[in-house]
């Protein structure tokens, strides 16, 4: 792909991405949301972030992209996060888990 069309694509994607992020912040700034909508929005964070975790595990390869060692790493990381409330400890525990599995198998 030559420079002109490629850069045009990047500009268009950047604008769409920005609109995705800014759109409702700007639109809802001076409007009141119904209480039921506010109640639903409370669950955006757990729902999206857990779906994102699964999607990242798959790495774009569908269900077959989710391997046992990866699930173990995320699982150990999640348990450590729940126990310590420390994200660095969680990340470290998860990575050590997968390194041990790789070394052992």
């Amino acid at each position: 792909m030559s420079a002109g069309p490629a850069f045009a694509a990047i500009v268009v994607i950047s604008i769409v991405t920005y609109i995705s992020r800014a759109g409702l912040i700007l639109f809802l700034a001076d409007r009141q949301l119904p209480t039921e909508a506010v109640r639903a929005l409370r669950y955006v964070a757990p729902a999206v972030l857990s779906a994102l975790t699964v999607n990242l595990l798959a790495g774009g390869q569908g269900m077959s992209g989710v391997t046992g060692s990866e699930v173990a790493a995320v699982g150990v990381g999640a348990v450590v996060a729940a126990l310590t409330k420390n994200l660095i400890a969680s990340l470290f525990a998860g990575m050590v888990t997968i390194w041990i599995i790789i070394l052992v198998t």
Partner: protein
Amino acid sequence: MSANTPPPAAAPDGDPDGHPGRDTDLHGVAKRAIRDVMPLYLPTIPFALVLGVAITESAMPTAVGYSSNLMFAGASQLATVTLAGTATWLTLVITASVINLRHVMYSAAMSTHFRDQPTWFRWVGSFVLIDQMFALTVNRTDMAPSVWRRYYMGAGVFLLVAWIAGVTIGMAVGSAIPTEWRLDITPAVMFGGLVVMGISTRPAAAAAITGAAVCFACLGIPNNGGILLGALAGVTAGFLADRASTRRTRPQEPRRIS
């Protein structure tokens, strides 16, 4: 502080006759934001390095691939530079854009925070509303609007600068990192920990479990459609569980299963 009180950020930084105590306080907020966002930033480093390598190998000119930092969206950037060799222009644009549709939900959930912010900040702050920013700031309701704004910007500017630095380093040396280290799974481990730490109620747990399960079932859908379906199902589950538990605590509204 009530929502009607104007934010106390009028005194410019370094004003000798201003309020040194308050200025120092706000300065500390930016530092605290960077410290808090560090665990979320570290897992993005491998991703930035991978993207840097992909830019140098892309079918589009390297300088143009590098300009994808305008998006400030790792997954979309990676899709853009890797698809450039095979996809049509329109497919490329649609694919890379659809990946970011989850940000619409972030935007909706964050609108309550931004309502207390000045207009300029709504425009500027939106640009850095990436996954990590959302995860870091969405639950920080303990801060006054001016403090929250400083906190948000501290983390956002840091992430933007550090992200571009990581991509640049990846373009130079990224291909030297062995893939056996499996640094590619660090983002998944981080978000997994983040989900668990963010769950404090049963409806939130229902939202997280449903979101993960539905996303897994929908992994075959192209353009990361599974994230959106999982998110919608998770929000619905959390909402219904929340409403059910509210009903239970209100006996004047009995519910009969017919």
